[in-house]
């Protein structure tokens, strides 16, 4: 059985955004039966990477459930747009990193799920390096 295909495209822009800028996104699900696709969630979110446990924040979230829709088909192209917040900016430090992404998660029959995320950068915070203590 083929794995379902999820495609995400951030339209009209590159992958670097300024705070307050509008992000337009479209996504689509393929290679899956209409009846097997139970729900689709799309999020614009940030999460941390690095040494610490993961923190995450959701800026935009939508959940579509097949049972709620007359046609019951969640596969066709779907668009949304959202104005990005001022913070937190994308950041690449020594033990703390902040990543932004658009994540689409699909829920299939028998409890299976799959997701795809497309990273993008918010702001232009510099990369940081550890400062050596002169002592």
């Amino acid at each position, binding site marked *: 059985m083929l794995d379902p295909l999820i495609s995400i495209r951030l339209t009209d822009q590159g992958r670097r955004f300024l705070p307050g800028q509008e992000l337009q996104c479209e996504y689509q699900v393929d290679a899956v039966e209409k009846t097997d696709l139970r729900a689709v969630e799309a999020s614009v979110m940030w999460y941390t990477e690095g040494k610490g446990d993961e923190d995450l924040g959701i800026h935009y979230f939508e959940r579509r459930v097949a049972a709620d829709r007359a046609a019951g088909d969640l596969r066709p192209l779907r668009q949304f747009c959202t104005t990005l917040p001022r*913070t937190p900016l994308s950041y690449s430090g020594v033990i703390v990193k902040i990543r932004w992404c658009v994540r689409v998660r699909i829920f299939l029959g028998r409890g299976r799920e799959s997701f795809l995320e497309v990273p993008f950068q918010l702001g232009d915070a510099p990369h940081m390096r550890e400062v050596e*203590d002169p002592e």
Partner: protein
Amino acid sequence: MARWFRVWQKKRGGRRTGSRLAGSVGEATFFGLLLLLGAIVQVYVFVSYAQAPSVMFLEPPVGFQFWLMVLISTSFLLIGGGGLVFAALQTGTSTERRAVLTKRAADLELGNEDLPPPDDNPGVPDHAHLTDSPGVKLRYRLPVISNQVFTFLAAATFCLVYNAILVVLLVVLIRAWLVGNPQILLAALALCFMAIGSWSIAFFLKQLRMRGGIGPTTVEISDHPLHPGDSYDVYLSQSGRLHLQRLEMLLVCEEEATFRQGTDVRTDRRVVFQQSVCACGDCQILRDQPYEDRGRLQIPSRTMHSFQGQHNVIQWKLVVRGQGVTWRTFERGFPIVISPPVGK
């Protein structure tokens, strides 16, 4: 998702490499079995009690054992039932959806309690507590974060407890010596204890002298929160009676990550930015004449703002560091918040 069942899987914080579904099933099975065990034990205990000959309701021979079994089985029921409900709620709910539900619940609570709504800068720490104290020379006096008190209390406790044990050991040794039964091995052990005990006393006295000699440090700032590219006046005052080889104020950015390692919760910190604001060498500070200095704090135009997550923090602070002549460096931190540029 893992294709094959693996006994050993990697887990770090909330992330794991194995199948989420298998994990949820395992969790639910564990709590289900605990619930079942609790129910069986409780039924058995009450049936045994009811079948006991000529027993009055909860009167002797109902004793300690009965109540202990009831307590244990009830705890099994509560933990098993609660865990099962929690596992059921988590199954089929993505991390993102749970985060959204938590955020909505928090927003509802805020609305109910008439608290100020969340600001426009998510992830930037609240700075109201940093501006509630007016300064004498400049607009705000910054609060101090100090771990010196903790060091002093730890040194005092260790010194007290350790030397108390040493005294008991010496008493035992002397009594044994007096009755003509000298304990050579115990005496050797006592010598080691005395060496560490002497060190702990010396360390405690040094801490005491530092606390007595170094008076309060005051830092004031002309505005707050700070913004990248802007500059601010800062004022430093150091009281006490001490002679310092060097006293300086630094602008520092520190990353802080909290993580679970086994059953421990650990915190790691790394300094990623450090810039001198003002400094002086060979400072003689007198009791009635504190050292005072002013400086200009320039925030780099392209820099990261302050960030506060549950496990990850990017903290900016002003650090006052003094190098004593007869003791090691002392350091006091004053937190500041750098917000993103206004209007961009």
